[in-house]
């Protein structure tokens, strides 16, 4: 994976998420899409396993630097999402919108679960409704965002390790 493209993706995803912020909230639960998570899923479905996991951890770590949550929380959450996405690489059709919706929803729930557990243990508790709403919202925008990112896939030079038979 080309590092320059990776850093640009991280920068844009987090910059857009910060800028869009509260204006993207919908509904009573205050749900909003997680563009950073979609970047994690994009890396997860295309990059080789090791690069994808490190990439997911790195994105989470950078997000941790821009939120009030403690350092490491999103690094863990996105690493788990990375692990989950990597594990589905061989099972799914990577360019299919349904794949994007399912991964967006499952990934958001997984990351949300980590944030919820952290809230219960360390406080302040996060809102279950907001997490679920955000997961739905992220799933809805996932085909669009991941579809656009797929167009730029060449810039990342993803290479897969040849399988030994």
């Amino acid at each position, binding site marked *: 994976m080309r590092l320059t493209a990776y850093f640009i993706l991280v*920068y*844009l995803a*987090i*910059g*857009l*998420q*910060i*800028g*869009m*912020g*509260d*204006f*993207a909230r919908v509904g009573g639960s*205050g749900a909003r899409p997680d563009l*950073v998570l979609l970047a994690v899923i994009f890396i997860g479905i295309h990059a080789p396993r*090791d690069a994808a*996991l*490190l990439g997911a*951890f790195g994105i*989470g*770590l*950078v*997000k*941790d*630097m*821009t*939120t*009030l*949550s*403690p*350092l*490491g*929380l*999103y*690094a*863990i959450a996105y*690493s788990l999402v990375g692990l989950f996405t990597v594990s589905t690489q061989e099972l799914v059709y990577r360019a299919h919108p349904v794949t994007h919706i399912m991964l967006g929803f499952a990934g958001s729930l997984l990351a949300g679960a980590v*944030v919820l557990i*952290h*809230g219960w*243990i*360390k*406080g*302040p*508790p*996060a*809102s279950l409704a*907001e*997490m679920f709403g955000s997961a739905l919202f992220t799933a809805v925008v996932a085909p669009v965002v991941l579809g656009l990112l797929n167009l730029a896939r060449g810039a990342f030079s993803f290479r897969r390790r040849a399988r030994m038979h």
Partner: protein
Amino acid sequence: MFHFKFNQVFVGLIALAFLSAFILPPDLSNPLRGLQALFAPVSRPTRAIAGSLHDRFAANHRDTREADQVKDENEQLRVLVMSLSGQLQELKRVANDFDRLGDVRPLCTRFKVVGDDPGTRDSIMLAASSRDQVKESQPVLSGQGLVGIVERVGQAGAQVRLITDKDFKVSGQFVRFNSNKTETREQTLATTIPLVRGAGKGQIEILNIQLKETALTDDPLKEKVAVGDYVKLEDPLWPPNVSGRLLGRVESITQQSGAPQHALIRVRPLLELKRLREVMVMNKLDVPEAQTAGEKSAGTN
């Protein structure tokens, strides 16, 4: 020679992250964090576009008034505009929202907001750094009242904990503004000192006021807290100049489900704090560390 496999390195990184997120105190990692302003080239235009789109579409969406009501209001507004035109020169002098800060204005510096919390907390990020004399625990204000407190600051950005964040706690006071034709009088309500805490999602709540001190009961002998009253900061641990700054307006009063004798008072700040585009940081006042609100917040957590 050590040979680490990737899995070992990855598990080590996760373990470190777990240690930092779940075990170590959050303040410990603050010096490592301060990149907020680096994202300003992307986040600021995004925020401007998102804000203007929101203003354009959300306003129409929320308007549920009848056509006749709108016509009546238009007529009243025409009269009002005519009467106000004579005062235009005077109003220009105070057109800048931050002139409302009054005596603390010289102690503050204006900073642009580059975005809000990408996670689930209530915070905003400023294009400010430690080189701008911005320090932790400095109060952050707007013309409409208190916005929050500087939570951490680095070489490339600062993060402000909003008064609506769930970890924000101060003591306050209920006030009511009685207006007549000539003046507006502020009346302080004699209630228990309200302990104000952020409730997330742009709201503040007060849980320690008894139901009998609110308008939910009909005891005519006491001044009761009612919807529409204001809450202002009255906390000895904050700098005296900030005392009296408005925190918000009482939006609803209900009975607490777990404590029937007490009211759940929901307060909404006068502005959508996460949507502010500029704020004032009180960075020219040397506040002794012991008197900062940051210590109070830490103490109450």
